[in-house]
């Protein structure tokens, strides 16, 4: 077997095994370098995997040579490759720029542990994505969640602690719900392998436990994915986490739960349960729409920069869910695309926030006056990523909105109503992004602040790079688009 065949395993194993090694590295300054190297390597693996599955094929991997469904199986297809790119890309980009910000926020003695937890989050998240086994998904989910609680609580802000506690409670309940669902399915089918489950559910005579399982799994994962109205843990957790942690988690953490949700509903239940797609749509679409509208409205009146962006994340999850709830090729590829594009936009925004936070202690909007003259590059990057979030043409965000609107139109007469909702929420995004822009560009500086300068070059370069990528993928979206399209095709094929 050549190296390529082992890539799915390496994707998980490399960060997981390096995590404890990072703790041992001496001197402590090396921890950052080590973690970054691992994250970049993971990204390289993800890129290699994406290239391998670009034509729509699926890479199967049997751990230890035990074939599925007896052994532990990993599988990578176009959809997982897309999400892998997002996770590893976010982890690598955030780490590459992270050093100045982390140095400022976390004392040096704890750096090895912090970076080790970071790699554990990374390996947990990629583990969820490559796993083809329902129980392993649970284990990886808990690895990533536990490690991310540590990351969020690692900062100097004491308000992070109650926020993490709430996250821990809700996250654990979500994971346990998921576990109940998996248990019920196992009880009826005797398998944990996702593909096997799909094959065997059809033979189950008493379908009721499966229906209950579908409910538990959907609710549990919706909790983890911060689907409205199960999102209450998000704003505080994102607001008080160390800034670079927010970059990483906001870009990918909730989307991974959403990925599992989509996998389960499309690959396992869609083909086997009667009228599942209708129930799914009826259940999810109102939640998605309410989430989009209410969270955007909350963001419009929010006064704290990070909390505002966190609210907007909840609305964006709604977009992804909306596309999924169409149960159509166009809708699914729009959602897959939005997973990618929103990670770019929101990751970039939070990177710019990290730059601002390096100089500004207080991130409330009315404290940010004069930022544009002191930190012109940061503000420019913020504006570009903000435009992408709004969905202005020429940026990545536009692509997925356009796809989503087209998918909505395909749904029939209701389509125009959905289009109206998408457009109204885009205008709401204009309002909340522009409140920030006005604060950055036209507000008088707060008296008594020391003269400020730009953020450190390292952080700034990464922020600028992500901003440029937002434009690049707005003009040349072919690669993620191809992945998203074959992902949608695979998911729908699975449901037939």
């Amino acid at each position: 077997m050549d190296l390529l065949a082992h890539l799915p395993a390496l994707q998980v194993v490399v960060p997981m095994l390096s995590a404890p090694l990072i703790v041992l590295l001496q001197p402590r300054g090396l921890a950052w370098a080590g973690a970054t190297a691992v994250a970049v390597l993971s990204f390289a693996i993800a890129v290699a995997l994406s290239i391998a599955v670009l034509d729509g094929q699926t890479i199967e991997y049997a751990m230890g040579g035990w074939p599925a469904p007896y052994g532990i199986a990993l599988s990578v297809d176009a959809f997982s490759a897309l999400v892998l790119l997002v996770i590893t890309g976010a982890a690598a980009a955030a780490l590459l720029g992270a050093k100045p910000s982390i140095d400022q926020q976390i004392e040096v003695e704890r750096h090895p542990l912090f970076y080790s937890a970071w790699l554990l989050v990374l390996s947990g998240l990629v583990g969820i994505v490559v796993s083809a086994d329902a129980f392993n998904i649970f284990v990886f989910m808990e690895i990533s969640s536990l490690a991310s609680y540590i990351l969020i609580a690692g900062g100097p802000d004491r308000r992070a602690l109650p926020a993490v506690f709430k996250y821990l409670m809700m996250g654990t309940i979500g994971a346990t719900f998921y576990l109940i669902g998996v248990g019920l399915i196992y009880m009826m089918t005797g398998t944990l392998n996702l593909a096997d489950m799909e094959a065997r559910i059809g033979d189950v005579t008493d379908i009721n436990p499966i229906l209950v399982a579908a409910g538990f799994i959907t609710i549990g994962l919706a909790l983890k994915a911060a689907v409205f109205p199960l999102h209450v843990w998000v704003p505080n957790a994102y607001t008080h986490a160390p800034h670079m942690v927010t970059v990483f988690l906001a870009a990918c953490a909730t989307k991974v739960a959403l990925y599992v949700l989509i996998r389960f509903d499309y690959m396992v239940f869609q083909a086997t349960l009667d009228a599942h797609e209708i129930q799914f749509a009826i259940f999810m679409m109102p939640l998605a729409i309410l989430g989009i509208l209410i969270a955007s409205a909350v963001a419009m009146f929010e006064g704290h920069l990070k909390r505002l962006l966190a609210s907007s994340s909840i609305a964006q999850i709604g977009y992804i869910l909306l596309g999924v709830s169409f149960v159509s090729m166009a809708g699914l590829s729009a959602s897959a695309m939005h997973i990618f594009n929103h990670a770019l936009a929101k990751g970039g925004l939070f990177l710019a926030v990290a730059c601002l936070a390096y100089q500004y202690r207080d991130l409330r909007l009315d404290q940010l006056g004069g930022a544009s003259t002191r930190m012109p590059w940061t503000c420019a990057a913020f504006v570009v990523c903000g435009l992408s979030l709004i969905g202005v043409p020429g940026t990545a965000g536009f692509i997925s909105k356009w796809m989503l609107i087209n998918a909505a139109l395909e749904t029939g007469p209701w389509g125009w109503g959905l289009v109206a909702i998408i457009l109204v929420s885009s205008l709401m995004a204009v309002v909340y992004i522009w409140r920030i822009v006005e604060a950055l560009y036209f507000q008088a500086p707060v008296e008594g602040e020391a003269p400020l300068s730009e953020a450190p070059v390292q952080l700034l370069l990464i922020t600028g790079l992500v901003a440029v990528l937002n434009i690049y993928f707005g003009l040349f979206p072919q690669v993620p688009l191809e992945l998203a399209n074959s992902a949608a095709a695979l998911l729908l094929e699975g449901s037939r």
Partner: protein
Amino acid sequence: MNFLELLGYFNYWVFAIILTVGLYAVINKTNLIKKLIGLSIFQSAVFLMYITMDKVEGGTAPIIQKGVEDQIFSNPLPQVLILTAIVVGVSTLSLGLAMVVRISECYGTIEENEILDAD
């Protein structure tokens, strides 16, 4: 469904009751330690469910013995799974307790409403 059949699902009834008791504590208690206790009860319910479903009537522990043929075993897989889940549960609990310690250091209280008032 007659009474005996209902009794036949005894373990599942207990599972459901423990699950709700745990969930109730998580939602309704303001003391963070009590919340964690609730969370543990909640998770234990799931362990019970897994263990129940692997039981085969008349089955013993799945150990192959010399000379004993056509022995009936209980299904070992859920037990292994639940072993893992217990480890996960313990880690969650210990991390939660560590958070409570930090909260207590920073806020001087572990009552949720008092913490909310403090900020």
